[in-house]
């Protein structure tokens, strides 16, 4: 177990190193000069050179890279060139907003995905199964950004029940209720794709589990249908949890589309605006930040897996 954690840890460091190099180089290969963006159209060459020096962008690339990593290790990802605030603080706040959106949509996706998936998997070919399949294909075929827009037309413009954008009201009491009220439409739009995928994966997992020999043994023992079903679901659980974790990790950046539609101030929206504005510091910081979370999540899931499935041993 300890050896396993050490091995995964050294792996983690290697992946972080590779990612940091790729991100660092990629963002500098992008067409266009961020200094021109920053200095405005009327800046003189001297002024541009001054700004370039102030961000350290006049130094050779290896020097820039080492400086960036040196500071990043200490939790300093530099200043956003566009907003002039520390990137780190900017990202942490946005991450919380994104997590809120992901949790909200995963609650919807799990309810639909596990519920319908288990129901249809237990009775393939039934009416519920067909309905679930139809819903699943629709969920997978729905473009999230367009679905979000439809929700805005229907439930924010035609029927003004929910706000069309943002995370809190400018006026009014604010508070948890207000945030949740803003969360409803974005969470619905974000949930469509993972819900569709999860219905199908849950269904096929349940069908696969039902064909295992232990199910026959239980039936032969004369156990009631309810008890057999409980055993099937319990056996399918590790696979279901694994799949759910993957979907949540996927949403970490896939929610960029709905975040943009609803102007939800999350990580995806932040990365999007930083890329559009060619904000070097913010983009490289944000991408590194997201990748660290993503890789760390994967490792945590791996380490936790034996808790849910005693058959797995970490070596």
């Amino acid at each position, binding site marked *: 177990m300890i050896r396993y954690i050490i091995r995964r840890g050294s*792996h983690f460091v*290697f*992946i972080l190193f*590779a*990612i940091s190099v*790729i*991100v660092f180089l*990629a*963002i500098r*290969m*992008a*067409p266009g000069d961020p200094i021109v963006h920053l200095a405005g159209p009327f800046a003189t060459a001297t002024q541009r050179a001054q700004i370039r020096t102030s961000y350290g962008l006049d130094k050779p690339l290896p020097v820039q890279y080492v400086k960036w990593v040196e500071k990043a290790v200490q939790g300093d990802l530099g200043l956003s060139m566009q907003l002039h605030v520390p990137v780190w603080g900017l990202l942490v706040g946005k991450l919380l907003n994104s997590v809120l959106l992901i949790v909200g949509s995963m609650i919807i996706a799990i309810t639909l995905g596990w519920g319908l998936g288990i129901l249809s998997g237990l009775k*393939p*070919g039934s009416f519920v199964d067909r309905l679930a*399949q139809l819903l699943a*294909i*629709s969920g*997978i*075929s*729905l*473009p*999230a*950004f*367009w*679905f979000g*827009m*439809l929700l*805005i*037309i229907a439930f924010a*413009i035609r029927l003004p029940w929910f706000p069309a954008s943002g995370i809190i009201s400018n006026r009014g009491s604010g508070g948890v209720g207000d945030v949740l009220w803003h969360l409803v439409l974005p969470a619905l739009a974000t949930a469509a794709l993972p819900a569709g*995928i999860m219905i*199908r*994966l849950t*269904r*096929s997992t349940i*069908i*696969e589990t039902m*064909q295992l020999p232990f199910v026959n043994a239980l039936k032969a023992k004369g156990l009631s249908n309810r008890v057999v079903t409980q055993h099937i679901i319990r056996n399918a659980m590790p696979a279901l949890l694994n*799949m759910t974790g*993957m*979907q949540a*990790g*996927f949403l*970490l*950046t*896939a929610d*960029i*589309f709905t975040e*943009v539609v609803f102007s939800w101030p999350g990580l*995806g929206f932040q*990365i*999007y605006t930083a*890329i*559009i504005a060619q904000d070097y510091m913010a*983009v490289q910081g944000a*991408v590194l930040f*997201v*990748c660290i979370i*993503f*890789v760390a999540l994967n490792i945590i899931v791996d380490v936790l897996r034996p808790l849910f499935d005693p058959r797995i041993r970490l070596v």
Partner: protein
Amino acid sequence: MRFLKKFLSRPSTMAASAVVVIVVLLAIMAPLVSPWDPVRVFPGLRNASLFTPGHILGTDQAGRDILSRLIWGARVTLVMGTVPVVLSMVIGTLLGLIAAYYAGALDFAILRLMEVLFAFPLVLLAVLAAAVFGNGMVNAMLAMAVAMVPYVIRAVYASAKPAMELTYVEASIIRGASASHVMLAEILPSIFPSLVVFATSMIPLFIIFAAGLSYLGVAIQPPTPEWGLMIAEGQQVIQVASHVPTVPGLVLLVVCFCLNVVSDRLQRELDPRTRQRHGARLPASG
């Protein structure tokens, strides 16, 4: 032929295939069937509603015929969704086969590279790559292909590695067959059906993905007709003419829905694992 007959035996598959074929044909014959030039502006007819004479689907915020833009846009959107999948399938299959065949340094290098790419969430990688390569259709397709490649490598490697131990593969190696023969003539045919299934199930997802990138403004630029871009532009007039952004999205939804139905059916026919048990397995995206 017998396969095709069996494949189309279900009415739902038949209908879905018909829709896909019609849309593809319309896209190919766009210059012949499109009622207007997709970028022609009718100055007096901004946001014309559905069923306006001469413009059956109305006109957009700039006064351009929506139906014509949809037909021309199909060329862009469908190509943008399909080419990256095919491209990444070819590259990923080759790399996956090589990694499975050559144990040792090459195997190690490919798998490490893959792990690094996996650390980038798919969507982030594509958005970043699109920004790096710059705007434009070719660049966006490259970006999506790069993002997809590690997933293909993983799928190919996972099925090709155990195939290396099959008796007929071992026999072929002992007989002195060349590396390319073993990879392409022995292993590839055995995993080919599941690769086709994998690819067809990814195409609708990537069509939506492509439209999404255009929607975000990192792929196709105006005034080129493209479905995702049409939705983004139409959003400006969402309050006065909600059909302008709604119609392109509806078309996108229907096309992807039909593609998914076709790919599901194909999976049941081609994939030996699911042929028996009437189950659908979608490659998990993550």
